[in-house]
């Protein structure tokens, strides 16, 4: 007896669309087609398989009333106890400073404004990414160079009220600068005369006082000559078949605006910055990616769904919020729930002042009150309408 054709398998499996997720449908169809090639699948067998697949999927679904948040918190928290507490690590030969382990997870969950080690991964367009020289050239272009970076020494001449910079020849050459170029950019920013004498630059503040001289000195030292604001170190690395530029410091908006950059893949580890430049959905993806990367790097396996839930909660308001008391936990509807988390007295006093009411709808409030919690089977209430009160028979 001949089995069903592959077309029948396809059409039968695709009937599940909408009911089962695409990935499962694809997997089921793939395995059925593979098996169907080796031996015949009977019509009844096919129906049975599909029925079982549907049943297995339904069984695996989270039940209504399940405390997914608590499960997620515990599932991320437990492996957290096994992570390194050491903050820094120099990764690879290039010695880039990256935050790892627990400190990084805390950083992600707290949605810090800037991570303690901002890092960018810049992919280049094919033209630039294939050639080492072009990648190097680009790296030079974006690395922030200040006057101090190219100076051999700087001194404040207190007698003549003058600021003297001695430039380092090789450092200038490496960055394609000349003493005159440095002098002119100082001239343009501070509107003062700069005397060039070989590799020595001399300048006087607009008013000849000591305090003015000191102010000028500090400002000139950190004057950016070229490069992108925030990017302090640049490393070029060969990865697979292209050169990738890694930077310490991050400035996504300006880097993406550069013509050499591959705008589809370039990334930063600063989640807030991603939120600002690429939007809230990109930030959500980035939270998941960064967290999973950190956990995996530590050899810990946490189901992706827990991180997805956390990321979804952090982004529901349209902007990235932290999980802690200034974010998700601080916005719970119940006073008692908020008070039991952090800064108890403040919440209780505020609630009294505003005459807040607690409906005891949540879990924590009901634990405090010593009542059954509305969770799992406790989340359903039974209402009975008796016949004599007008209920149906």
């Amino acid at each position, binding site marked *: 007896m001949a089995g069903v054709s592959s077309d029948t398998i396809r059409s039968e499996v695709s009937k599940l669309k909408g009911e089962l997720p695409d990935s499962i449908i694809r997997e089921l169809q793939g395995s059925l087609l593979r098996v169907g090639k080796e031996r015949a699948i009977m019509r009844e067998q096919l129906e049975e398989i599909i029925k079982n697949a549907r049943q297995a999927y339904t069984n695996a679904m989270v039940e209504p009333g399940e405390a997914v948040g608590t499960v997620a918190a515990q599932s991320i928290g437990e492996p957290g106890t096994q992570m390194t507490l050491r903050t820094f690590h120099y990764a690879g030969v290039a010695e880039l400073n990256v935050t790892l382990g627990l400190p990084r997870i805390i950083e992600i969950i707290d949605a810090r404004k800037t991570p303690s080690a901002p890092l960018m991964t810049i992919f280049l367009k094919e033209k630039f990414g294939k050639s080492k020289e072009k990648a190097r050239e680009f790296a030079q272009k974006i690395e922030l160079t200040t006057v101090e970076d190219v100076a051999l020494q700087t001194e404040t001449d207190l007698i003549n009220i003058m600021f003297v910079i001695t430039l380092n020849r090789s450092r200038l050459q490496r960055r394609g600068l000349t003493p005159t170029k440095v002098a002119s950019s100082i001239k343009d920013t501070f509107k003062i005369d700069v005397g060039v004498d070989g590799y020595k630059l001399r300048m006087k503040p607009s008013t000849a006082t000591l305090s003015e001289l000191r102010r000028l000195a500090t400002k000139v030292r950190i004057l950016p000559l070229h490069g992108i604001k925030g990017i302090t170190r640049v490393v070029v690395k060969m990865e697979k078949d292209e050169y990738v530029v890694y930077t310490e410091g991050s400035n996504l908006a300006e880097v993406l*605006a550069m013509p050499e950059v591959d*705008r*589809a893949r370039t990334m930063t580890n600063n989640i807030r910055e991603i939120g600002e430049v*690429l939007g809230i959905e990109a930030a959500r*993806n980035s939270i998941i990616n960064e967290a999973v990367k950190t956990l995996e790097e530590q050899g810990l396996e946490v189901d992706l769904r827990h991180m997805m839930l956390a990321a979804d909660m952090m982004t529901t308001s349209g902007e990235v919020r932290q999980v802690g008391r200034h974010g998700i936990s601080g916005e719970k509807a119940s006073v008692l729930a908020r008070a039991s988390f952090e800064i108890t007295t403040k919440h209780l006093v505020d609630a009294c002042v505003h005459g807040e009411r607690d409906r005891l709808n949540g879990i924590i409030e009901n634990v405090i009150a010593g009542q059954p919690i509305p969770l799992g089977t406790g989340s359903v209430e039974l209402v009975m309408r008796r016949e004599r009160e007008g209920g149906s028979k």
Partner: protein
Amino acid sequence: MPEELNIGRHVLVPKHEILPKGKVDELLERYKISPHQLPLIMSSDPAAKEIGAKPGDVLKITRDSQTAGEAVFYRHVVKG
């Protein structure tokens, strides 16, 4: 920014589209909710701006999901 940035092309940005009015009602009816109960997105959000979403619209976001292959998500556009 000096050059026009097409952020929709970035790997981190899923597909955003404005849900037509009829579909919005259908969605709200299916979950028996009002629009403000949906997750939010700011009208100033780069991805929302790119497709010209106005406050009050509902966006359909088709995410690539590692667990489900493709997952559909909705966000209500608010002023911000």
